């Protein structure tokens, strides 16, 4: 073996080994992009006309008008109430559904039911759910609470179920070996293991519900979103901008608080 005349080289093996497949995927992606841009109905003329209009809206928004503080405050307090109530309800309800949807502690039929509930409550964006609830129970905060409760069950339930599926089974066996029943085993061997995650998820969900409560308000489910929609409807752009600024501020504060709490908990 003669090493000196042929220096050994190394290159990272390509992610997709087959060159035909590798370049084929690239070509298909490029073709799709060209086709999509060519066929989607972008009306450049209207976009050009729209630009000055959006400039007018932004112009009308400055300076933001904070004079109607009471309206702003009422909306926000309602949003906050919706978010907190929905989080409490949703998190409380997500626990039984998470238990049902954890393969290691639920019998198969119960597991399938639990998974089904979680999948259904996760399959629609809150705005769509809110439209349905507004139609069902009318305009106002109740529709918002129901929407965000369902949203929380889906999100927290799914992540909690996954957490339960990853618990240390030895602790469960030890408690079962002592002759404990199902509920006692849940409370002693399962809950302590998922508790930190549960609290962290609840904080995150409160944060997320606060954000979402502003959005679902736009379709009539109460809170600051409704106030915002009305302001836009009446061309009160300065008031609308004030609302947007306050939403940003509130989200920042709530993110800070929840981040701090979660860090302390871990």
């Amino acid at each position, binding site marked *: 073996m003669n090493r000196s005349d042929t220096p050994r080289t190394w290159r990272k093996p390509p992610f997709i080994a087959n060159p035909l497949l590798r370049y084929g995927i690239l070509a298909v992606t490029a073709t799709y992009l060209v086709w999509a841009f060519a066929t989607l109905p972008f009306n450049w003329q209207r976009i050009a006309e729209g630009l000055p209009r959006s400039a007018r809206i932004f112009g009308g928004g400055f300076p933001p008008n904070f004079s109607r503080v009471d309206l702003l405050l009422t909306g926000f307090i309602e949003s906050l109430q919706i978010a907190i109530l929905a989080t409490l309800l949703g998190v409380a309800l997500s626990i039984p559904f998470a238990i049902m949807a954890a393969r*290691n502690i639920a019998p198969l039929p119960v597991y399938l039911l639990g998974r089904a509930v979680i999948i259904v409550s996760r399959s629609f964006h809150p705005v769509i759910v809110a439209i349905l609830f507004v139609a069902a129970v009318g305009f106002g905060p109740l529709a918002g609470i129901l929407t965000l409760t369902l949203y929380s069950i889906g999100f927290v339930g799914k992540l909690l179920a996954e957490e339960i599926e990853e618990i240390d089974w030895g*602790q469960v066996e030890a408690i079962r070996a002592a002759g*404990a029943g199902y509920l006692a085993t849940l409370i002693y061997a399962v809950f302590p293991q998922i508790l930190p995650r549960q609290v962290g998820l609840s904080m995150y969900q409160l944060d997320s519900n606060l954000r979402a409560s502003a959005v679902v308000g736009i379709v009539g489910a109460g809170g600051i979103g409704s106030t915002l929609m009305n302001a836009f409807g009446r061309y009160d752009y300065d008031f609308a901008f004030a609302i947007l600024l306050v939403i940003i501020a509130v989200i920042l504060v709530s993110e800070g608080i929840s981040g701090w709490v979660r860090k302390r908990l871990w």
Partner: protein
Amino acid sequence: MLEISQLTKRYGQDDPVLTGLDLTVEGNSVVAIVGASGAGKSTMLRCINRLVEPTSGSIKLNGHELVGLKGAELRRARRRIGMVFQGFNLIDRLSVMENVLAGRLGYVSLFQAVTRRYPQADIERAFQLMERVDIAHYANKRADELSGGERQRVGVVRALMQEPEVLLADEPTASLDPRTSEQIMMLLQSLASELSLPVLINIHNVSQAKTYTERIVGLRHGKMIFDGRPADFTSDALDAIYGGIEAAQDEPPAPPAATRKHEAPHEPF
């Protein structure tokens, strides 16, 4: 008295892990069960308290048949069987006292369990046992703050809280350093005579088995191939159980943890 007869266990369609095992343990004897990984030691112990479902055979504790029990009857039977685990299996986030009292979960009501309002007698017994093994001052510490040896002593006390009629120990010293594991073996030995309790210990350390037990049972491929006094446990017996060094390859691999873990899910706890 624990009587195991014709115990067979197979996982799924695999070769049986235990085949027609017979074993009788009486009085307050300490029995060591030795054998290579995958020989069926763990499966045998777990069949006794039914963490593993025996395929066939009979297991009687003081005359009561354990195989085939269901629901509340199974739970009542389990509380008479204490178990100590290799990985301690304490509830890390609960206090030492809560872990110890968890040994009473087969006796107390759900309300008592949730609110931690255990009967006075249980609390008294907990303190006595914790003092016996020198961990009473840790009562309100979180279980995961203790050292390995201390944690295993919590595990032993939890099992004894059940007022068991037999104590099973599944490699109780395998996660401990040599010095601590000697202490735990000594503790199990003396508790067996203090409480006149039969103790079955799965163990890999043959010299500890010889020192601290009065009977050694050797398993290989799910069959008992040695049963006798430690003095009779010669190097021939050792070779027969573990295989000569050159024969080490023919051991079947231990059942993967994943299959064992998911053995249970269908029956709720």
